[in-house]
Protein backbone atom coordinates (compact mmCIF):
# COMPACT_ATOMS: atom_id res chain seq x y z
CA UNK A 1 0.00 0.00 0.00
CA UNK A 2 1.30 3.41 -0.97
CA UNK A 3 0.19 6.93 -0.31
CA UNK A 4 0.94 9.56 -2.89
CA UNK A 5 0.28 13.28 -2.59
CA UNK A 6 0.51 14.96 -5.94
CA UNK A 7 1.25 18.71 -5.66
CA UNK A 8 -1.68 19.50 -3.41
CA UNK A 9 -2.68 23.05 -2.55
CA UNK A 10 -4.98 24.41 0.12
CA UNK A 11 -6.06 27.93 0.87
CA UNK A 12 -8.08 28.88 3.94
CA UNK A 13 -9.43 32.42 4.15
CA UNK A 14 -7.19 33.43 1.25
CA UNK A 15 -4.08 32.28 3.13
CA UNK A 16 -1.98 29.57 1.60
CA UNK A 17 -1.88 26.76 4.15
CA UNK A 18 -0.40 24.12 1.87
CA UNK A 19 1.52 24.96 -1.30
CA UNK A 20 2.48 22.47 -3.94
CA UNK A 21 3.07 19.57 -1.56
CA UNK A 22 4.11 16.24 -3.05
CA UNK A 23 4.95 13.17 -0.99
CA UNK A 24 5.17 9.44 -1.39
CA UNK A 25 4.91 7.05 1.55
CA UNK A 26 5.47 3.32 0.95
CA UNK A 27 3.86 0.42 2.76
CA UNK A 28 5.20 -0.11 6.21
CA UNK A 29 6.98 3.20 6.13
CA UNK A 30 6.51 5.78 8.83
CA UNK A 31 6.81 9.34 7.64
CA UNK A 32 6.96 12.01 10.31
CA UNK A 33 5.76 15.46 9.34
CA UNK A 34 7.69 17.92 11.43
CA UNK A 35 7.45 21.66 11.56
CA UNK A 36 6.76 24.67 13.75
CA UNK A 37 3.16 25.38 14.69
CA UNK A 38 1.18 26.84 11.83
CA UNK A 39 3.36 25.23 9.19
CA UNK A 40 0.46 23.23 7.76
CA UNK A 41 1.25 19.80 9.15
CA UNK A 42 -2.18 19.28 10.72
CA UNK A 43 -3.88 20.55 7.57
CA UNK A 44 -1.90 18.04 5.53
CA UNK A 45 -3.24 15.29 7.77
CA UNK A 46 -6.79 16.59 7.50
CA UNK A 47 -6.51 16.73 3.72
CA UNK A 48 -5.38 13.11 3.61
CA UNK A 49 -8.17 12.15 6.03
CA UNK A 50 -10.77 13.93 3.92
CA UNK A 51 -11.79 16.32 6.67
CA UNK A 52 -10.69 19.09 4.33
CA UNK A 53 -10.73 19.04 0.53
CA UNK A 54 -7.73 20.14 -1.54
CA UNK A 55 -8.10 23.17 -3.80
CA UNK A 56 -5.95 21.44 -6.39
CA UNK A 57 -3.70 18.40 -6.67
CA UNK A 58 -4.58 14.80 -6.01
CA UNK A 59 -4.17 12.10 -3.38
CA UNK A 60 -3.78 8.41 -4.16
CA UNK A 61 -3.84 5.34 -1.95
CA UNK A 62 -2.75 2.23 -3.86
CA UNK A 63 -3.23 3.91 -7.21
CA UNK A 64 -6.80 4.77 -6.27
CA UNK A 65 -7.62 8.46 -6.52
CA UNK A 66 -9.18 9.41 -3.19
CA UNK A 67 -8.94 13.18 -3.61
CA UNK A 68 -12.69 13.70 -3.58
CA UNK A 69 -14.13 10.66 -1.82
CA UNK A 70 -15.68 10.79 1.64
CA UNK A 71 -13.55 10.26 4.76
CA UNK A 72 -15.14 6.91 5.62
CA UNK A 73 -14.47 5.43 2.18
CA UNK A 74 -10.80 6.30 2.48
CA UNK A 75 -10.49 3.62 5.18
CA UNK A 76 -8.08 5.61 7.30
CA UNK A 77 -7.23 4.94 10.92
CA UNK A 78 -6.68 8.26 12.60
CA UNK A 79 -5.51 9.06 16.11
CA UNK A 80 -6.46 12.58 17.10
CA UNK A 81 -4.30 14.77 19.27
CA UNK A 82 -7.10 14.98 21.84
CA UNK A 83 -7.95 11.28 21.19
CA UNK A 84 -11.55 12.38 20.40
CA UNK A 85 -13.12 9.65 22.53
CA UNK A 86 -16.87 9.97 23.03
CA UNK A 87 -17.25 11.03 26.68
CA UNK A 88 -20.78 9.65 27.10
CA UNK A 89 -19.91 6.14 25.93
CA UNK A 90 -17.99 3.37 27.66
CA UNK A 91 -14.70 2.23 26.20
CA UNK A 92 -16.44 -0.77 24.71
CA UNK A 93 -19.14 1.40 23.13
CA UNK A 94 -16.52 3.84 21.90
CA UNK A 95 -14.85 1.05 20.00
CA UNK A 96 -17.96 -0.70 18.72
CA UNK A 97 -19.84 2.43 17.58
CA UNK A 98 -18.06 2.66 14.25
CA UNK A 99 -18.54 -1.03 13.52
CA UNK A 100 -22.23 -0.72 14.31
CA UNK A 101 -22.63 2.26 11.98
CA UNK A 102 -20.83 0.50 9.18
CA UNK A 103 -23.30 -2.35 9.49
CA UNK A 104 -21.02 -5.03 10.86
CA UNK A 105 -22.94 -7.80 12.60
CA UNK A 106 -23.13 -7.80 16.36
CA UNK A 107 -21.36 -11.12 16.67
CA UNK A 108 -18.49 -10.05 14.45
CA UNK A 109 -18.27 -6.69 16.24
CA UNK A 110 -18.01 -8.37 19.66
CA UNK A 111 -15.27 -10.64 18.34
CA UNK A 112 -13.23 -7.81 16.84
CA UNK A 113 -13.59 -5.43 19.77
CA UNK A 114 -12.64 -8.07 22.32
CA UNK A 115 -9.60 -9.12 20.36
CA UNK A 116 -8.43 -5.50 20.16
CA UNK A 117 -9.13 -4.95 23.86
CA UNK A 118 -7.08 -8.06 24.51
CA UNK A 119 -4.23 -6.93 22.26
CA UNK A 120 -3.99 -3.57 24.01
CA UNK A 121 -4.64 -5.00 27.50
CA UNK A 122 -7.71 -2.83 27.98
CA UNK A 123 -10.33 -5.50 28.85
CA UNK A 124 -10.57 -4.45 32.48
CA UNK A 125 -11.48 -0.90 31.39
CA UNK A 126 -14.12 -1.80 28.82
CA UNK A 127 -17.09 -0.70 30.96
CA UNK A 128 -15.52 2.58 32.04
CA UNK A 129 -16.06 6.01 30.57
CA UNK A 130 -13.07 7.87 29.05
CA UNK A 131 -13.07 10.35 31.97
CA UNK A 132 -12.20 7.49 34.34
CA UNK A 133 -9.05 6.62 32.35
CA UNK A 134 -5.53 7.99 32.56
CA UNK A 135 -3.97 9.85 29.64
CA UNK A 136 -1.97 6.82 28.56
CA UNK A 137 -5.01 4.55 28.70
CA UNK A 138 -7.05 7.01 26.65
CA UNK A 139 -4.33 7.11 24.06
CA UNK A 140 -4.41 3.32 23.85
CA UNK A 141 -8.18 3.41 23.33
CA UNK A 142 -7.71 5.92 20.52
CA UNK A 143 -5.12 3.59 19.00
CA UNK A 144 -7.50 0.67 19.40
CA UNK A 145 -10.17 2.55 17.50
CA UNK A 146 -7.76 3.25 14.65
CA UNK A 147 -6.65 -0.40 14.59
CA UNK A 148 -10.27 -1.58 14.46
CA UNK A 149 -10.75 0.19 11.17
CA UNK A 150 -8.26 -2.23 9.63
CA UNK A 151 -7.15 0.77 7.61
CA UNK A 152 -5.11 1.14 4.49
CA UNK A 153 -3.26 4.03 6.11
CA UNK A 154 -2.65 5.40 9.60
CA UNK A 155 -2.67 9.08 10.45
CA UNK A 156 -1.36 10.05 13.87
CA UNK A 157 -1.85 13.67 14.87
CA UNK A 158 0.57 14.45 17.69
CA UNK A 159 -0.42 11.21 19.42
CA UNK A 160 1.94 11.75 22.34
CA UNK A 161 1.73 15.47 22.92
CA UNK A 162 -0.80 15.19 25.75
CA UNK A 163 1.33 12.75 27.73
CA UNK A 164 4.14 13.41 30.13
CA UNK A 165 7.69 12.70 29.02
CA UNK A 166 8.04 9.48 31.01
CA UNK A 167 4.86 7.99 29.62
CA UNK A 168 5.86 8.97 26.10
CA UNK A 169 9.05 6.99 26.38
CA UNK A 170 7.11 3.97 27.65
CA UNK A 171 4.51 4.18 24.89
CA UNK A 172 6.91 4.50 21.97
CA UNK A 173 7.74 0.78 21.79
CA UNK A 174 4.04 -0.03 22.06
CA UNK A 175 3.18 2.29 19.20
CA UNK A 176 5.95 0.69 17.19
CA UNK A 177 4.65 -2.82 17.95
CA UNK A 178 1.06 -2.01 17.06
CA UNK A 179 1.19 0.32 14.15
CA UNK A 180 4.63 0.91 12.77
CA UNK A 181 5.35 -2.79 12.26
CA UNK A 182 2.30 -3.27 10.06
CA UNK A 183 2.46 -2.92 6.33
CA UNK A 184 0.39 0.23 6.02
CA UNK A 185 1.95 3.62 5.47
CA UNK A 186 1.95 5.72 8.64
CA UNK A 187 1.95 9.48 8.77
CA UNK A 188 2.98 10.84 12.09
CA UNK A 189 2.54 14.55 12.70
CA UNK A 190 4.58 16.01 15.50
CA UNK A 191 6.34 19.16 16.55
CA UNK A 192 8.74 17.15 18.71
CA UNK A 193 11.92 16.42 16.76
CA UNK A 194 13.09 13.72 19.15
CA UNK A 195 9.86 11.85 18.60
CA UNK A 196 10.12 12.29 14.84
CA UNK A 197 13.70 11.05 14.78
CA UNK A 198 13.06 8.04 16.99
CA UNK A 199 9.81 6.88 15.39
CA UNK A 200 10.05 7.68 11.71
CA UNK A 201 11.85 6.09 8.77
CA UNK A 202 11.76 9.43 7.03
CA UNK A 203 10.99 12.96 8.10
CA UNK A 204 9.29 15.62 6.02
CA UNK A 205 9.92 19.13 7.23
CA UNK A 206 7.28 21.73 6.49
CA UNK A 207 7.54 25.46 6.80
CA UNK A 208 4.86 27.95 5.76
CA UNK A 209 2.96 25.24 3.95
CA UNK A 210 5.89 24.15 1.83
CA UNK A 211 7.95 21.00 1.96
CA UNK A 212 11.46 22.16 2.82
CA UNK A 213 13.23 18.85 3.10
CA UNK A 214 12.42 15.16 3.17
CA UNK A 215 14.80 12.39 4.07
CA UNK A 216 15.91 9.92 6.72
CA UNK A 217 16.41 11.39 10.19
CA UNK A 218 20.15 10.98 9.70
CA UNK A 219 20.14 12.83 6.34
CA UNK A 220 18.18 15.68 7.78
CA UNK A 221 20.46 16.01 10.75
CA UNK A 222 23.72 15.59 8.86
CA UNK A 223 22.88 17.57 5.72
CA UNK A 224 20.15 20.08 6.45
CA UNK A 225 18.97 21.57 3.17
CA UNK A 226 18.56 25.09 4.46
CA UNK A 227 19.26 27.35 7.38
CA UNK A 228 15.69 26.79 8.54
CA UNK A 229 16.09 23.01 8.74
CA UNK A 230 19.54 23.31 10.31
CA UNK A 231 18.29 25.49 13.11
CA UNK A 232 14.94 23.71 13.51
CA UNK A 233 16.39 20.21 13.86
CA UNK A 234 19.01 19.50 16.51
CA UNK A 235 19.12 20.60 20.11
CA UNK A 236 21.10 22.45 21.34
CA UNK A 237 20.72 24.59 18.25
CA UNK A 238 23.36 24.80 15.54
CA UNK A 239 25.81 27.74 15.64
CA UNK A 240 25.47 30.01 12.61
CA UNK A 241 27.90 32.73 11.76
CA UNK A 242 28.73 34.68 8.60
CA UNK A 243 31.89 33.48 6.92
CA UNK A 244 32.26 35.99 4.10
CA UNK A 245 29.94 37.96 1.90
CA UNK A 246 27.13 35.72 0.70
CA UNK A 247 28.12 32.76 2.86
CA UNK A 248 26.89 31.56 6.23
CA UNK A 249 28.68 28.84 8.18
CA UNK A 250 27.00 26.44 10.56
CA UNK A 251 28.57 24.13 13.10
CA UNK A 252 26.70 21.83 15.49
CA UNK A 253 27.58 22.41 19.17
CA UNK A 254 28.78 18.79 19.52
CA UNK A 255 31.21 19.22 16.61
CA UNK A 256 33.18 21.90 18.42
CA UNK A 257 36.02 20.50 20.54
CA UNK A 258 38.79 21.77 22.76
CA UNK A 259 42.23 21.86 21.14
CA UNK A 260 45.70 23.40 21.46
CA UNK A 261 45.16 25.46 18.35
CA UNK A 262 42.09 27.23 17.05
CA UNK A 263 40.31 30.27 18.33
CA UNK A 264 40.33 31.84 21.74
CA UNK A 265 37.21 31.98 23.81
CA UNK A 266 35.72 33.21 27.04
CA UNK A 267 33.06 31.19 28.88
CA UNK A 268 29.93 33.24 29.34
CA UNK A 269 27.99 30.59 31.22
CA UNK A 270 27.53 26.84 31.44
CA UNK A 271 24.41 24.69 31.30
CA UNK A 272 24.66 21.38 33.06
CA UNK A 273 22.73 18.73 31.10
CA UNK A 274 23.51 15.54 33.00
CA UNK A 275 25.49 13.41 30.55
CA UNK A 276 27.10 16.50 29.08
CA UNK A 277 27.37 20.21 29.50
CA UNK A 278 26.72 23.11 27.21
CA UNK A 279 29.11 26.04 27.20
CA UNK A 280 28.07 29.43 25.91
CA UNK A 281 31.24 31.03 24.61
CA UNK A 282 32.26 34.46 23.47
CA UNK A 283 34.70 34.20 20.55
CA UNK A 284 36.01 36.20 17.63
CA UNK A 285 33.32 34.43 15.53
CA UNK A 286 30.60 35.65 17.85
CA UNK A 287 28.72 33.73 20.49
CA UNK A 288 29.02 29.95 20.11
CA UNK A 289 27.51 26.98 21.88
CA UNK A 290 29.78 24.01 22.57
CA UNK A 291 28.60 20.63 23.83
CA UNK A 292 31.17 18.64 25.84
CA UNK A 293 31.27 15.66 28.15
CA UNK A 294 30.07 16.44 31.60
CA UNK A 295 33.38 15.64 33.26
CA UNK A 296 35.60 17.80 31.07
CA UNK A 297 37.64 20.54 32.69
CA UNK A 298 38.81 23.56 30.80
CA UNK A 299 42.17 25.26 31.36
CA UNK A 300 43.49 28.60 30.16
CA UNK A 301 45.58 27.17 27.23
CA UNK A 302 42.52 25.62 25.61
CA UNK A 303 41.25 26.90 22.33
CA UNK A 304 38.24 25.67 20.37
CA UNK A 305 38.39 24.02 17.01
CA UNK A 306 36.32 21.98 14.56
CA UNK A 307 36.88 19.79 11.54
CA UNK A 308 36.30 21.43 8.18
CA UNK A 309 34.12 18.54 6.96
CA UNK A 310 31.73 19.15 9.83
CA UNK A 311 30.93 22.63 8.58
CA UNK A 312 27.57 23.35 6.98
CA UNK A 313 27.71 26.10 4.38
CA UNK A 314 24.69 28.10 3.36
CA UNK A 315 24.05 30.82 0.82
CA UNK A 316 23.12 33.93 2.78
CA UNK A 317 20.63 35.08 0.13
CA UNK A 318 18.74 31.89 -0.71
CA UNK A 319 19.36 30.41 2.77
CA UNK A 320 20.01 27.09 1.02
CA UNK A 321 22.83 24.62 1.55
CA UNK A 322 25.90 24.89 -0.65
CA UNK A 323 28.26 22.05 0.34
CA UNK A 324 27.36 18.35 0.17
CA UNK A 325 28.00 17.31 3.76
Amino acid at each position, binding site marked *: MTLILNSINKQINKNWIIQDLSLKVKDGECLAILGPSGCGKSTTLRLIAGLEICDSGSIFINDEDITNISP*VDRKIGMVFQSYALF*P*HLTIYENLSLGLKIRGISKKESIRRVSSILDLLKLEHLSTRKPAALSGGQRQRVALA*RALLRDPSLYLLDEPMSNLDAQLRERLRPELRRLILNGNQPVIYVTHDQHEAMSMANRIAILNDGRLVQIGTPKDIYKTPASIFVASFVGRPQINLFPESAGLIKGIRPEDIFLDNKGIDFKILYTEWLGTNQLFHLDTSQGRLRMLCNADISINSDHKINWKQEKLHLFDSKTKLRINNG
Partner: protein
Amino acid sequence: MNYLLLTPAFLLILLVFVLPLIRYSWMSMHSISVITGLDYIPNNGSNWIRLLNDDRFWRDTIQTIRFAAFSVSIEIVLAIIIALLLSQRIKGKGILRTISLLPWALPTTIMALGWRWIFNTPYGPIDQISSLIGFGTLDILSNPDLAWIATVIGDVWKTTPFVALIILAGLQTIPSDLYEAFKMEGGSPLQSFIKITLPLLKPYILLSLVFRLAQAFGVFDLIQVMTGGGPASSTESIAIYAYLNAMRFLDFGYSATIMIASFILLITICLFTWIFYNKLKSKLSI
Protein backbone atom coordinates in the same frame (compact mmCIF):
# COMPACT_ATOMS: atom_id res chain seq x y z
CA MET B 1 -15.54 33.56 61.40
CA ASN B 2 -15.55 32.45 57.75
CA TYR B 3 -19.33 32.42 57.78
CA LEU B 4 -19.36 36.11 58.59
CA LEU B 5 -18.61 36.84 54.94
CA LEU B 6 -21.80 35.05 53.95
CA THR B 7 -23.94 37.35 56.09
CA PRO B 8 -25.01 39.79 53.34
CA ALA B 9 -26.12 36.96 51.04
CA PHE B 10 -27.72 35.15 53.93
CA LEU B 11 -29.60 38.30 55.00
CA LEU B 12 -30.82 38.87 51.46
CA ILE B 13 -32.19 35.34 51.14
CA LEU B 14 -33.73 35.61 54.59
CA LEU B 15 -35.48 38.90 53.80
CA VAL B 16 -36.77 38.25 50.28
CA PHE B 17 -37.27 34.50 50.38
CA VAL B 18 -37.45 32.86 53.80
CA LEU B 19 -39.40 35.55 55.64
CA PRO B 20 -42.18 35.89 53.02
CA LEU B 21 -42.48 32.11 52.93
CA ILE B 22 -42.89 31.93 56.70
CA ARG B 23 -45.29 34.85 56.68
CA TYR B 24 -47.42 33.37 53.89
CA SER B 25 -47.47 29.98 55.59
CA TRP B 26 -48.60 31.74 58.74
CA MET B 27 -51.25 33.69 56.79
CA SER B 28 -52.53 30.50 55.17
CA MET B 29 -53.54 29.27 58.63
CA HIS B 30 -55.73 32.35 59.22
CA SER B 31 -58.78 34.05 57.86
CA ILE B 32 -57.70 37.50 56.68
CA SER B 33 -60.22 39.36 54.56
CA VAL B 34 -62.54 42.38 54.48
CA ILE B 35 -65.00 40.33 56.55
CA THR B 36 -62.49 39.93 59.39
CA GLY B 37 -61.54 43.57 59.05
CA LEU B 38 -58.11 42.33 57.87
CA ASP B 39 -57.51 40.87 61.34
CA TYR B 40 -55.74 37.51 61.57
CA ILE B 41 -58.28 34.99 62.85
CA PRO B 42 -56.96 31.43 63.22
CA ASN B 43 -59.15 29.02 61.29
CA ASN B 44 -57.53 25.63 61.97
CA GLY B 45 -56.54 24.94 58.36
CA SER B 46 -59.94 25.58 56.84
CA ASN B 47 -58.15 27.50 54.03
CA TRP B 48 -56.32 24.29 53.15
CA ILE B 49 -59.50 22.21 53.25
CA ARG B 50 -61.15 24.78 51.00
CA LEU B 51 -58.20 24.59 48.61
CA LEU B 52 -58.37 20.80 48.37
CA ASN B 53 -62.05 21.09 47.41
CA ASP B 54 -61.63 24.13 45.18
CA ASP B 55 -62.33 22.99 41.60
CA ARG B 56 -61.15 26.31 40.20
CA PHE B 57 -57.75 25.90 41.88
CA TRP B 58 -57.28 22.41 40.48
CA ARG B 59 -58.45 23.44 37.05
CA ASP B 60 -55.99 26.35 37.16
CA THR B 61 -53.25 23.94 38.26
CA ILE B 62 -53.94 21.74 35.25
CA GLN B 63 -54.05 24.81 32.99
CA THR B 64 -50.73 26.01 34.42
CA ILE B 65 -49.13 22.62 33.92
CA ARG B 66 -50.51 22.50 30.38
CA PHE B 67 -49.10 25.96 29.67
CA ALA B 68 -45.72 25.11 31.18
CA ALA B 69 -45.45 21.70 29.53
CA PHE B 70 -46.34 22.93 26.05
CA SER B 71 -44.36 26.15 26.08
CA VAL B 72 -41.24 24.63 27.67
CA SER B 73 -41.12 21.61 25.37
CA ILE B 74 -41.70 23.68 22.23
CA GLU B 75 -39.08 26.17 23.42
CA ILE B 76 -36.49 23.45 23.93
CA VAL B 77 -37.04 21.88 20.50
CA LEU B 78 -36.92 25.27 18.77
CA ALA B 79 -33.95 26.34 20.86
CA ILE B 80 -31.96 23.27 19.79
CA ILE B 81 -32.68 24.05 16.14
CA ILE B 82 -31.77 27.73 16.55
CA ALA B 83 -28.61 26.90 18.52
CA LEU B 84 -27.54 24.44 15.82
CA LEU B 85 -28.04 27.13 13.18
CA LEU B 86 -26.22 29.76 15.20
CA SER B 87 -23.26 27.47 15.81
CA GLN B 88 -22.63 26.98 12.09
CA ARG B 89 -19.82 28.82 10.38
CA ILE B 90 -21.87 31.56 8.75
CA LYS B 91 -21.21 35.18 7.91
CA GLY B 92 -22.64 37.73 10.33
CA LYS B 93 -22.95 35.14 13.07
CA GLY B 94 -22.43 37.72 15.80
CA ILE B 95 -25.22 39.95 14.51
CA LEU B 96 -27.57 36.99 14.08
CA ARG B 97 -26.92 35.90 17.67
CA THR B 98 -27.69 39.38 18.95
CA ILE B 99 -30.88 39.68 16.91
CA SER B 100 -32.10 36.30 18.06
CA LEU B 101 -31.71 37.41 21.68
CA LEU B 102 -33.86 40.52 21.24
CA PRO B 103 -37.25 39.00 22.16
CA TRP B 104 -35.82 37.90 25.48
CA ALA B 105 -34.48 41.37 26.19
CA LEU B 106 -37.93 42.98 25.77
CA PRO B 107 -40.05 43.55 28.89
CA THR B 108 -42.76 40.88 29.03
CA THR B 109 -45.56 43.44 29.40
CA ILE B 110 -44.58 45.23 26.20
CA MET B 111 -44.25 42.11 24.11
CA ALA B 112 -47.48 40.69 25.58
CA LEU B 113 -49.26 43.84 24.42
CA GLY B 114 -47.73 43.22 21.00
CA TRP B 115 -49.08 39.69 20.91
CA ARG B 116 -52.51 40.83 22.13
CA TRP B 117 -52.55 43.17 19.17
CA ILE B 118 -51.40 40.44 16.77
CA PHE B 119 -54.31 38.23 17.91
CA ASN B 120 -56.76 41.14 18.03
CA THR B 121 -60.12 40.65 16.35
CA PRO B 122 -60.74 41.97 13.76
CA TYR B 123 -57.76 44.35 13.38
CA GLY B 124 -54.76 42.14 14.27
CA PRO B 125 -52.61 40.75 11.45
CA ILE B 126 -53.64 37.14 12.08
CA ASP B 127 -57.37 37.85 11.68
CA GLN B 128 -56.65 40.20 8.79
CA ILE B 129 -54.74 37.53 6.92
CA SER B 130 -57.28 34.80 7.63
CA SER B 131 -60.08 37.13 6.44
CA LEU B 132 -58.12 37.88 3.29
CA ILE B 133 -57.72 34.22 2.39
CA GLY B 134 -61.37 33.58 3.18
CA PHE B 135 -61.38 31.95 6.62
CA GLY B 136 -63.06 34.94 8.29
CA THR B 137 -61.92 36.18 11.68
CA LEU B 138 -60.40 33.53 13.95
CA ASP B 139 -61.11 35.36 17.18
CA ILE B 140 -58.55 33.24 19.01
CA LEU B 141 -58.31 35.30 22.22
CA SER B 142 -62.05 35.01 22.88
CA ASN B 143 -62.18 31.28 22.21
CA PRO B 144 -61.88 29.32 25.50
CA ASP B 145 -60.47 26.33 23.60
CA LEU B 146 -57.79 28.28 21.73
CA ALA B 147 -56.79 31.29 23.84
CA TRP B 148 -54.24 29.27 25.85
CA ILE B 149 -52.44 28.41 22.61
CA ALA B 150 -51.98 32.12 21.94
CA THR B 151 -50.38 32.52 25.39
CA VAL B 152 -48.08 29.57 24.66
CA ILE B 153 -47.05 31.22 21.37
CA GLY B 154 -46.28 34.48 23.19
CA ASP B 155 -44.20 32.66 25.79
CA VAL B 156 -42.34 30.60 23.18
CA TRP B 157 -41.52 33.74 21.21
CA LYS B 158 -40.17 35.48 24.27
CA THR B 159 -38.24 32.70 25.98
CA THR B 160 -36.85 30.53 23.18
CA PRO B 161 -33.79 32.83 22.85
CA PHE B 162 -32.93 32.26 26.50
CA VAL B 163 -33.07 28.49 26.11
CA ALA B 164 -31.20 28.72 22.80
CA LEU B 165 -28.43 30.58 24.59
CA ILE B 166 -28.04 27.80 27.17
CA ILE B 167 -28.11 25.13 24.46
CA LEU B 168 -25.63 27.10 22.33
CA ALA B 169 -23.27 27.25 25.30
CA GLY B 170 -23.68 23.49 25.62
CA LEU B 171 -23.02 22.94 21.92
CA GLN B 172 -19.78 24.85 22.18
CA THR B 173 -18.49 22.53 24.88
CA ILE B 174 -18.59 19.64 22.38
CA PRO B 175 -15.16 19.45 20.72
CA SER B 176 -15.30 19.43 16.93
CA ASP B 177 -12.91 16.50 16.67
CA LEU B 178 -15.60 14.23 18.15
CA TYR B 179 -17.67 14.93 15.06
CA GLU B 180 -14.66 14.44 12.83
CA ALA B 181 -13.76 11.14 14.45
CA PHE B 182 -17.36 10.04 14.04
CA LYS B 183 -17.40 11.13 10.42
CA MET B 184 -14.30 9.07 9.73
CA GLU B 185 -16.05 6.07 11.27
CA GLY B 186 -18.82 6.52 8.73
CA GLY B 187 -21.42 8.48 10.70
CA SER B 188 -23.91 10.63 8.80
CA PRO B 189 -24.80 14.13 10.03
CA LEU B 190 -28.14 12.85 11.39
CA GLN B 191 -26.41 9.98 13.20
CA SER B 192 -23.87 12.33 14.71
CA PHE B 193 -26.70 14.53 15.98
CA ILE B 194 -28.41 11.54 17.62
CA LYS B 195 -25.31 9.73 18.85
CA ILE B 196 -23.13 12.68 19.88
CA THR B 197 -24.89 16.03 20.02
CA LEU B 198 -28.07 15.02 21.84
CA PRO B 199 -26.48 12.86 24.55
CA LEU B 200 -23.85 15.50 25.24
CA LEU B 201 -26.50 18.24 25.32
CA LYS B 202 -28.71 16.39 27.80
CA PRO B 203 -27.37 18.16 30.90
CA TYR B 204 -27.96 21.54 29.25
CA ILE B 205 -31.43 20.56 28.13
CA LEU B 206 -32.31 19.50 31.67
CA LEU B 207 -30.82 22.65 33.11
CA SER B 208 -33.00 24.81 30.89
CA LEU B 209 -35.93 22.54 31.72
CA VAL B 210 -35.54 23.31 35.43
CA PHE B 211 -35.11 27.05 34.80
CA ARG B 212 -38.03 27.26 32.43
CA LEU B 213 -40.43 25.03 34.35
CA ALA B 214 -39.96 27.18 37.44
CA GLN B 215 -40.60 30.34 35.42
CA ALA B 216 -43.51 29.02 33.39
CA PHE B 217 -45.17 27.57 36.46
CA GLY B 218 -45.34 31.02 38.02
CA VAL B 219 -46.49 32.75 34.81
CA PHE B 220 -48.36 35.95 35.56
CA ASP B 221 -47.49 39.07 33.55
CA LEU B 222 -47.80 37.55 30.08
CA ILE B 223 -51.27 36.13 30.76
CA GLN B 224 -52.45 39.11 32.76
CA VAL B 225 -51.69 41.40 29.81
CA MET B 226 -52.73 39.09 26.94
CA THR B 227 -55.97 37.63 28.25
CA GLY B 228 -56.32 38.58 31.91
CA GLY B 229 -56.92 34.88 32.57
CA GLY B 230 -59.96 34.71 30.31
CA PRO B 231 -62.00 33.93 28.35
CA ALA B 232 -64.08 32.07 30.96
CA SER B 233 -60.89 31.63 33.05
CA SER B 234 -59.56 29.30 30.35
CA THR B 235 -56.05 30.77 30.49
CA GLU B 236 -56.02 31.42 34.22
CA SER B 237 -52.81 30.29 35.92
CA ILE B 238 -52.31 29.60 39.62
CA ALA B 239 -50.51 32.93 40.00
CA ILE B 240 -53.43 34.78 38.41
CA TYR B 241 -55.89 33.00 40.71
CA ALA B 242 -53.82 33.92 43.77
CA TYR B 243 -53.68 37.51 42.53
CA LEU B 244 -57.47 37.59 42.03
CA ASN B 245 -58.09 36.26 45.53
CA ALA B 246 -55.90 38.90 47.09
CA MET B 247 -56.63 41.93 44.91
CA ARG B 248 -60.21 41.38 43.76
CA PHE B 249 -61.82 39.20 46.44
CA LEU B 250 -59.60 40.73 49.15
CA ASP B 251 -59.24 37.28 50.72
CA PHE B 252 -55.57 37.43 51.73
CA GLY B 253 -55.56 34.27 53.82
CA TYR B 254 -56.78 32.12 50.92
CA SER B 255 -54.48 33.86 48.42
CA ALA B 256 -51.52 33.01 50.67
CA THR B 257 -52.69 29.39 50.81
CA ILE B 258 -52.73 29.19 47.00
CA MET B 259 -49.25 30.64 46.78
CA ILE B 260 -47.80 28.24 49.33
CA ALA B 261 -49.52 25.32 47.58
CA SER B 262 -48.13 26.32 44.20
CA PHE B 263 -44.71 26.74 45.80
CA ILE B 264 -44.86 23.18 47.12
CA LEU B 265 -45.96 21.86 43.71
CA LEU B 266 -43.17 23.71 41.94
CA ILE B 267 -40.49 22.64 44.40
CA THR B 268 -41.57 19.02 43.91
CA ILE B 269 -41.40 19.27 40.13
CA CYS B 270 -38.02 21.02 40.16
CA LEU B 271 -36.61 18.61 42.72
CA PHE B 272 -37.44 15.64 40.52
CA THR B 273 -35.95 17.31 37.46
CA TRP B 274 -32.85 18.25 39.44
CA ILE B 275 -32.33 14.74 40.78
CA PHE B 276 -32.70 13.41 37.24
CA TYR B 277 -30.23 16.05 36.02
CA ASN B 278 -27.60 15.16 38.61
CA LYS B 279 -27.92 11.48 37.87
CA LEU B 280 -27.30 12.20 34.23
CA LYS B 281 -24.44 14.53 34.98
CA SER B 282 -22.56 11.97 37.03
CA LYS B 283 -23.30 9.37 34.40
CA LEU B 284 -21.74 11.51 31.69
CA SER B 285 -19.02 12.64 34.09
CA ILE B 286 -19.10 16.12 32.62
